[in-house]
């Protein structure tokens, strides 16, 4: 299969002979990052465990550089593939250095003694994840973030061509999540190590991955680049997002829109509307937003949170259609919030809209109108 470093062909995975997911066909080039996303219990771990040969494939096989995983001995596999698992390391009385050093297992002699080169590699791996200062610490006495870094160092010093990680960012705070993922990213790009992992944070998955696999139901619902996968309907279907929505542009997750008849109209632009939208959403007050250009940052969030958005195409003067629509909706409302919007040549008619609101006695609450 020429170009592809890792691939699965007609792979079916499951437990005890029962198929959970079938027809898994994945192709990755060396140095690509594949992320598995999908709801809890969808079988992400099952797929990962099958790739790492912790579970026998029910049908089909995976191939690392065209060598069958099914046919490989554990010893051969250990020189190509390293893992970071969710299960806790059981060992007692181990320092972090000891834990990382277990990554050298495939390369040490019969008794498992570390050579000076092995020690250097352990040190190098720990420095790479900024964990060398933990070397002498007891492995059970460090924080979750530190633990994940140590486990990643362990995988790195196994000198694999491919690393498989099962939910490596769970339990980490945002700083450590970003740190871990950027280490993975640079490893993949600089050393050409292929990364396969599962993530819960779809926003991060979108940003770090070269390929995304959506795991749900009996087959892989989607496999492709983040651009192909991160569409509102695909993500909405994958996670059954009836409550709330996923914003593609920001990769942000939004809570559901307030329900009911809107009684507030928000006039905003250039980001000034976002805090207002969020406040109204928290107060469970349904609202309209407008008139927003489709390239306005406010438009992205308004789409997720407002009951209705009056929009205009970018860089055009506000047309009659949008203006009339906005006016009609505004007249149904009890109040208008003007969140502060710069007025220029194109959107001059917004000023008219605001004046109209004042005439109608819909007293602007909150922010000032900044006419420029």
């Amino acid at each position, binding site marked *: 299969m020429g170009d592809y470093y890792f691939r699965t062909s007609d792979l079916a995975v499951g437990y005890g002979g029962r198929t959970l997911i079938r027809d898994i066909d994945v192709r990755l080039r060396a140095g690509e990052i594949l992320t598995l996303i999908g709801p809890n219990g969808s079988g992400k771990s099952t797929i990962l465990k099958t790739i790492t040969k912790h579970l026998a494939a029910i049908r089909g096989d995976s191939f690392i550089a065209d060598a069958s995983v099914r046919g490989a001995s554990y010893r051969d596999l250990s020189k190509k593939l390293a893992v970071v698992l969710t299960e806790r*390391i059981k060992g007692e009385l181990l320092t972090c250095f000891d834990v990382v050093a277990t990554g050298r297992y495939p390369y040490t002699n019969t008794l498992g003694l570390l050579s000076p080169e092995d020690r250097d590699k352990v040190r190098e791996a720990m420095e790479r994840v900024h964990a060398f200062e933990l*070397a002498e610490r007891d492995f059970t006495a460090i924080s979750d973030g530190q633990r994940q870094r140590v486990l990643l160092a362990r995988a790195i010093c196994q000198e694999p061509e491919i690393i498989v990680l099962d939910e490596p960012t769970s339990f980490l705070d945002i700083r450590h999540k970003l740190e871990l993922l950027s280490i993975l990213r640079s490893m993949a790009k600089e050393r050409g190590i292929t990364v396969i992992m599962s993530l819960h944070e779809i926003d991060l998955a979108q940003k770090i991955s070269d390929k995304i696999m959506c795991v749900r139901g009996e087959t892989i619902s989607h496999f492709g680049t983040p651009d192909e996968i991160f569409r509102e309907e695909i993500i909405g279907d994958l996670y059954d997002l009836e409550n709330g929505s996923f914003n593609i542009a920001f990769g942000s997750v939004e809570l559901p829109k307030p329900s009911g008849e809107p009684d507030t109209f928000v006039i905003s632009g250039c980001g000034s509307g976002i805090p207002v939208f969020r406040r109204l959403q928290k107060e469970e007050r349904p609202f309209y937003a407008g008139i927003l250009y489709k390239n306005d940052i406010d438009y992205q969030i308004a789409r997720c949170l407002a009951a209705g958005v009056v929009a205009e195409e970018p860089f055009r003067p506000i047309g009659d259609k949008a203006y009339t629509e906005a006016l009609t909706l505004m007249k149904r409302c009890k109040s208008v919030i003007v969140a502060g919007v710069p007025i220029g040549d194109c959107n001059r008619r917004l000023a008219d809209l605001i004046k109209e609101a004042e005439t109608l006695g819909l007293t602007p609450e909150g922010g000032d109108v900044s006419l420029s």
Partner: protein
Amino acid sequence: MSETELQNAGARRVRYLAVFIGLAAAFVLLTVWNINSGSVHISVGDIARIIFLREGDDTQMGIVWKLRLPRIIAAAVLGGGLALSGFLMQTFFGNPIAGPFVLGISSGSKLFVAIVMIVALRFVSYISSWMMVVAAFAGALIAMGFVLLAARSIRQMSMLLVAGIMISYICSAITEFLITFARDSDIVNLHSWSQGSFSGTKWDDVRLFTVIILVCFAVVFLMSKPIGAYQMGEAYAQSMGVNVKRFRVVLILMSSLIAGCVTAFAGPISFVGIAVPHLIKMLLKTAKPLLVIPASFLGGAVFCLFCDYIARTAFSPVELSISTVTALFGAPVVIGMLIRRHGERG
């Protein structure tokens, strides 16, 4: 390497060396002490002459060569074996209080040896030590089989031990039943043995069990590397290249063979298998098999030499069963360990 790292590595090496030297010294001291004390006192000079030059007065020669020396070797080798077997079972189950005695493995061996002794003696006049070992090994494997069956459905480690203790009770009950209905002459042999004892060891036996246990020790020592990997958990061990299925089978066979062999010659002996590996890990401050395996073996030897000395001399001429003494010293260690571990979690 940084300076602090070098210092730490150095400090660790000194600690390891100190533990091994301490154990070796204790071993020599206890050996001499065991030879020279008892109902007949023999001075150290005489001992050296008797052992190394094989000369001295006949009674003393007899006592040293026929009674005390085989018994000392039995205590040392079988004690070391028990500690080793305990360490292997703890590794296998990932459970610090697993051991041949609590899991009922020793009782399984005891039952099989009892059956062979009582039943076979009706048909043949003499039972070789080999047969005893084979019977004990078979009993150990069968008991282990039941424990493994229980372990498949019971995930909780305390419940696994309860299952082991139940197996132990069942085996002991059947053994008692057999003894009750056995002919008197057999009972005399069986009774002291079924309580655990190093006394009455013959040189033929010494040769046999020394070979078996030392070969097992060598095999286990060479397995240090995969054992270390397995301590991290099955999944990680496999990802490091260990064939976990095969490894588990070997581990079970080795630990059962050692436990069975010890039971065949000395009967069931309690707590050595749990207490010694734990104490050794505490002393070494590491669980690395490369160090813990030889240190546990040596530690088991020292512990059993000490306990046998007490069993023999404390209420002389009455002898205590070895399990009485090992329990007395071993059980508090285990209780202490449980409290510590529980405290850490709670």
